């Protein structure tokens, strides 16, 4: 594929800094609109906290509903960042370059959003401090470290801190660039943030070595986070459909599936909105789609194992649950939509090169995947609780209330709002990576064929 063009650095600066130096016209109205949605969402959350969880559809025996599903969903999306950024850095994949920053950002902002859900779901968020923070010796109780509900905040806190720092370190050269292009208060801000970046060999070397080292450290954290989230469910032997040893890798690979798809969605939007056709090219979508085929098929294998071993024990309650999940209204409808959107529609489409290189198709298929993956979490969490179990006198299906839906919508507006706000001040595509790619790629002639080639350093 020969889509790469030789670009001059002034042009790269002008194009990739257009969000900061030459903010597009649609930016202000869009951010204002999203801001309004965010404020409405916050008001609804306040009302819910004031009135109590009675305004939601949560009730016996379904205490985990839309909020926890959405929490798991956003934690899943957050796995895009490190997956793309760290794995592709470690394998030195050349096509990672325009993708890394956006992916890392998605990690940070979706984690920030995910964190909100268990907090507000607790009903009285301030009380969470009692069971998370090791602060209160006088009560004679410390947080129960045997509970996965403690492991969760520890893991997510680690991941959030780590990925924010990772994002900042990789931002340093671009902050130096922005400092050089701006005046006035902006210049002052970027001067402070760039920490005095000059671009000498020592600093560049630290970018490379440090980037690889941080990637290697972040990868095991990324795997642990969703595993720990999955153990919230898996260690509970009382709920059918939850107590499965496969949950940890199953959640992780599902998260990668939805996260990488979210990156595709975002890349398409970035290409359209900021007109970055030179940087975000069909070949990048092609590479992401190939990766997604592998990830999605791996996920399918795990889904297969999950189902197989759920039925393996041949216990009546487990079989009853699966029957409800797959064959009873309305779960069966959700199950069919889930399966079609998460795998059966997108993956066969991605097998065609024409689809992989078509940005609109990639955009819509990646959205489909995330519809499916949200439903997957919903179908894991809710039916297990909603099923009629012995000695329980309520078992009707759970119906999320308007408040829950509003907060659900708020989350999407909030993430987009944060992204756009970030794009006003910082470049979404790493400039130095775009420039480095110009230095490190070349064409070689093998016989009469022109073949793209990469300069590899002796490391």
């Amino acid at each position, binding site marked *: 594929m020969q889509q790469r063009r030789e670009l*001059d*650095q*002034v042009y790269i*600066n002008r194009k990739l800094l257009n969000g900061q130096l030459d903010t597009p016209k649609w930016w202000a109205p869009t951010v204002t609109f999203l801001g309004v949605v965010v404020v409405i969402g916050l008001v609804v959350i306040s009302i819910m906290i004031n009135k109590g969880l009675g305004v939601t559809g949560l009730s016996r025996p379904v205490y985990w509903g839309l909020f926890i599903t959405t929490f798991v969903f956003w934690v899943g999306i957050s796995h895009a960042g490190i997956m793309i950024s760290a794995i592709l850095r470690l394998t030195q994949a050349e096509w990672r370059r325009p993708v890394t920053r956006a992916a890392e950002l998605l990690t940070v902002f979706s984690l920030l959003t995910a964190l909100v859900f268990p907090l507000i779901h607790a009903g009285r968020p301030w009380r969470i401090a009692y069971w998370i923070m*090791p602060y209160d*010796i006088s009560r*004679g*109780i*410390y947080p*129960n*470290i*045997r*509970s996965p509900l*403690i*492991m969760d905040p*520890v*893991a997510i*806190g*680690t991941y959030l*801190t*780590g990925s924010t*720092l*990772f994002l*900042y*370190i990789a931002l*340093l050269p671009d902050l*130096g*660039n922005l400092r*050089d*292009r701006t005046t006035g208060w902006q210049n002052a801000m970027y001067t402070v943030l760039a*920490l*005095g*970046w*000059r*671009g*000498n*060999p*020592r*600093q*560049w*070397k*630290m*970018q490379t*070595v*440090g980037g690889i*080292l*941080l990637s290697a*450290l*972040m990868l*095991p*954290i990324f795997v*642990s986070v969703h595993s720990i989230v999955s153990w919230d469910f898996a260690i509970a032997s009382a709920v059918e459909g939850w107590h499965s040893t496969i949950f940890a890798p199953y959640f992780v690979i599902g998260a990668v599936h939805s996260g990488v798809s979210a990156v595709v969605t975002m890349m398409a939007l970035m290409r359209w909105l900021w007109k970055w056709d030179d940087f975000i090219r069909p070949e990048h979508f092609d590479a992401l789609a190939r990766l997604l085929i592998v990830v999605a098929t791996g996920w399918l294998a795990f889904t297969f194992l999950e189902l197989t071993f759920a039925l393996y024990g041949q216990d009546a309650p487990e079989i009853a649950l699966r029957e409800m999940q797959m064959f009873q209204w309305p779960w069966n409808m959700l199950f069919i939509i889930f399966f079609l959107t998460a795998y059966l529609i997108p993956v066969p489409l991605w097998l065609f090169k024409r689809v992989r290189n078509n940005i609109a198709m990639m955009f819509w298929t990646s959205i489909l995947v995330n519809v499916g993956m949200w439903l997957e979490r919903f179908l894991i969490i809710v039916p297990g609780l909603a099923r009629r179990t012995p000695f329980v006198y309520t078992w009707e299906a759970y119906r999320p209330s308007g408040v829950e839906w509003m907060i659900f919508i708020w989350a999407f507006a909030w993430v987009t709002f944060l992204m756009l706000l970030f794009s006003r001040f910082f470049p979404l595509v790493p400039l*130095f990576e775009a*420039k*480095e790619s110009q*230095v*490190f790629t070349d064409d070689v002639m093998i016989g009469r064929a022109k073949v793209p080639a990469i*300069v590899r*350093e*002796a490391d």
Partner: protein
Amino acid sequence: MSTQSILGLFHQAEPAADAMDGLKEAGFKLGTFDVLTGTPYPEGAFGEHVPQHRLFRFPAFGAIIGFTLSVFLTAVTQLAYPMVTGGKPILSVFAMLIIMYEMTMLSGVIATVVGIVFESRLPNMKPGIYDTRITEGWIGVVVTFDDDSKVADAESVLNKAGAVEIKHA
């Protein structure tokens, strides 16, 4: 005697590398001249002194601290305030391991970031002579002097290599 420095600006990598070679031949000590670029180049592309670093010690150090803290948080607090939950032992090693793992990694990552900043010799609020065109693809060769007598030598080396512009500070 005041420290002063000059900055030669080049359009291309090749003449900048010539300038670095010239400075070496003219007897300038390693560490008194450096190259500034707007993008990373393969190591040694300018014949520059390959910087040594101790970055790998930072995560190890951070991990040890994090691990120690996590042992305290998980084991010592549970022993000091014992309360049985879920029928599990007070020292539930397999549950503790998860928290210990996260805290070790967190501390390792933070230490690495500190290490990257430190080994980049940042923050540096007085970075010295600089030109904004370096982030537009120009290449800068900066030479620092302890005494003024060698300024002319350096300038002639830079000019001979084909510097487009020379700045003084």
